[in-house]
């Protein structure tokens, strides 16, 4: 209604009220209104974005709905309820996907509103006990896993001496798909890029950041940035949308400088696939990553790439692009806090997609892993394209 006020029509509407009432209202509209904080506004909202929130849809509980979380956050902030592990738990029932922001009349992301509270409670060492192990790993290995014995699968690494691009595989790819580093670097080379693979296992810091462990994030990010910058690469190619977002936006916010231009692999493929006449007779559907679609503002990226493949039938699911339905990867704290719910969310999405096609194309190895765990046929976009280039794609 403030817009109404700005539109001046509310002044007309106020005409019928007494002078005293009118004056105090105008003071409130002009002076006090700007002081209302966003968390309070969200706590007072009738949950207008709940249909878009994967946690809310699947968990189907008020406390973990978007405004439900904000209400609990407000009660914690105002000390109406005690700050203990049980009471703060709802703040961790979030995928940091920003899907709420798409239909929010204020464009709020609940995650953005409640992260500052997670930060405060992290400082007080109050967080769900299931996160302890993860935090220990982050502190010890600067990565959500101990990957000290994993190495990227790069055979021609030493032969490349001009490295235009640095490929940063990220934690999930290194843990579960280290062989794909080879595929990826070959794909990038075919796309006219000389590549070196970043081989130290420091993660991008996304989880530390989202948990509110900001000092830890700074420690991880600064070390990683130094190492990345030391490669003197022109481009930094990531395979995980969360890495891309963290490098591009969060590092920037924390004033951590990364010199190379940052690309998600799908963005890079989209730019350079022109010269390849790709064909495939296949029916596929897509799972858009919310980080790519919403945070990085690339809602049509996967579809744009796939549309250019002759013979490929891309069947869009009910929820795609900006309205995508995020799943829970191991790089999300909800995976660690409530694995049953993570499984349910992924199953819901998998079932939706499999009604449209047996082959799901994703733009993240975390998503690939989650769908594979459930037994769905899934390909990450770079491996899908690589298989097409090499004539390895199946026809169905």
């Amino acid at each position, binding site marked *: 209604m403030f817009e109404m006020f700005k539109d001046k029509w509310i002044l007309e*509407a106020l005409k019928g009220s007494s002078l005293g009432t009118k004056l105090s209202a105008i003071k*409130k509209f002009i002076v006090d209104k700007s002081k209302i904080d966003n968390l309070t506004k969200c706590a007072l909202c009738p949950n207008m974005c709940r249909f878009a929130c994967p946690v809310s*849809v699947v968990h189907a509980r008020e406390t973990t709905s978007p405004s439900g979380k904000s209400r*609990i956050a407000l*009660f914690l902030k*105002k000390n109406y*309820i005690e700050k203990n592990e049980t009471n703060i738990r709802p703040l961790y029932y979030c995928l940091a996907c920003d899907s709420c922001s798409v*239909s929010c009349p*204020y464009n709020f992301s609940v995650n953005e509103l409640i992260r500052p509270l997670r930060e405060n409670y992290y400082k007080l060492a109050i967080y769900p006990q299931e996160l302890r192990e993860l935090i220990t790993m982050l502190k010890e290995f600067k990565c959500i896993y101990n990957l000290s014995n994993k190495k990227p699968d790069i055979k021609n690494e030493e032969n490349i001496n001009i490295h235009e691009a640095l490929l940063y595989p990220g934690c999930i790819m290194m843990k579960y798909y280290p062989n794909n580093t080879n595929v990826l670097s070959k794909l990038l080379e075919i796309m006219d890029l000389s590549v070196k693979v970043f081989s130290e296992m420091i993660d991008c810091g996304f989880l530390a950041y989202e948990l509110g462990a900001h000092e830890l994030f700074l420690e991880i990010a600064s070390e990683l940035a130094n190492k990345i910058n030391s490669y003197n690469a022109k481009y930094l190619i990531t395979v995980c949308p969360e890495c891309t977002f963290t490098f591009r936006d969060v590092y920037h916010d924390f004033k951590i400088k990364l010199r190379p231009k940052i690309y998600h692999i799908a963005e890079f493929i989209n730019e350079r696939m022109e010269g390849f006449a790709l064909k495939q007779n296949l029916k596929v559907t897509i799972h858009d990553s919310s980080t790519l679609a919403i945070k990085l503002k690339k809602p049509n990226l996967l579809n744009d790439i796939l549309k250019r493949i002759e013979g490929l039938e891309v069947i869009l699911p009910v929820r795609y692009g900006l309205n995508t339905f995020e799943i829970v990867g191991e790089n999300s704290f909800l995976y660690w806090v409530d694995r049953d719910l993570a499984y349910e969310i992924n199953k819901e999405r998998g079932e939706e997609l499999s009604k449209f096609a047996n082959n799901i194309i994703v733009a993240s190895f975390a998503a690939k892993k989650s769908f594979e765990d459930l037994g769905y046929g899934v390909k990450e976009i770079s491996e899908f394209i690589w298989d097409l280039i090499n004539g390895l794609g199946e026809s169905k």
Partner: protein
Amino acid sequence: MVKEVMRKAPKRPEIVEELKKLIGSRKVSNNLTDLISYSHDYWPITFTWLLNGSLPALPDVVVFPEDARDVIQVVKFAYNNDVPLYVYGGGSGVLGGAVPEYGGIVMDIKKFREIKINDIDMYVEVGAGANGMILEEFLNRHGFTLGHFPQSLYTSTVGGWINTKAIGQFSVKYGGIEDMLLGLEVVIPPGELLEIKPNPRAAVGLDLKQLFIESEGLFGVLTKAYLKIWPYPEKRILLSYVSDNLEDALKSVREIMLSGAKPAVIRVYDKIETLKWFHMIKKAKGKVGTIIILEGDEDLIEAEKIIVNKAFKNALSTGEEPAKYWLENRFNVKEISDYLPLGIIIDTIEISVGWSKAIELYNDVINAIRSVDGTLIAFAHASHFYPQGVCFYFIFGGLPSNKSSVLDYYNDVWESVMSTVIKHGGAISHHHGIGRMRANWVEKNMGKVAYHLFKKLKQCIDDKGILNRGNMGV
């Protein structure tokens, strides 16, 4: 410490463990955060309390059933142990209908969200907890629409719609939820599943579906509904008009309603609200704007357009723009968030009345609201129409003076509006229902005999009064 403003019964912590044993601990919670979340719905006055850490009433426990068996078990338990049981959908009810006034159990029904389309018999079988927008998007993706667009579409549930007799913005064409309901499944005390199958029409004894429409959780726990669906409309036509006054606009709409044409949307704004929705039309200032949206088969809506234009022949035709603007902004709900923290209470009151008394009632209600000291704004639109009359949707906002509290101001406005509507013989609610806010006026509005019968029915179905104890005053 959170304070409870309305709780009327002692705490019963012992029921938590028993329920856990009954349906599994994963589906039962007495965490403080859950008790807080289910202590209120979207009744605006209770949000003024919430800002100060006070809540209407905490339940003793919240349950999250996953199938009809769980529901039956809980209803049996509540019945055998005389524990109040409140059903919770989206919590978007605006009158306190879901407030667990007597504590006990709140049952969140949102896990019931399966959607199955029957595209031959043209209905959807849908869980009572299904979210409106998810349902509509699912139907659209498969080429259908429900045609039900309450402003709370994004947040409310099918079960909530039926239990409050909700209506959507496209009601002139598609009707209210009562026109869409073909069948249902509901668990009634002492724990039985009642099924009403989806037939096009049935004359097989009393139509028991009616018992559950606008029953606000008093008669049973709705678990499933069968709702009519329509092919996704082929085409839309957006129209708008500016009339000299409300009377002229309503006359035009009445003509349309009597012609048999069925525009999907008709919205008539009073002079004040016209300033908002027709802000882009200079000539609308000081006049009454009407938005009309036609949708469906192309030939049919072209014919309807002729009828609409004829009915508004004395008005100024103002094109697509206002309707477009409305379509884009109709779900932007910000009022409570923007104004409540300033101490300004905002609420809406929807009522219905026959054509013959429409203008008089509109004027009297606006005057009644304005007569309450502290009122800042009072305006209205009419957005649901029938050959017999109209629903007015009043919006008021006030900043209580130093002498009165927000609650006093709020109650005074409600009292003045309700008594005005009753005096004119209108219905005190058109689609939000009764809840706790309107309970005091139900008997007067229904009539003594009808209210007595209503109470007897409640007694007959739920003899221990476990379901939504305290609601509607029954």
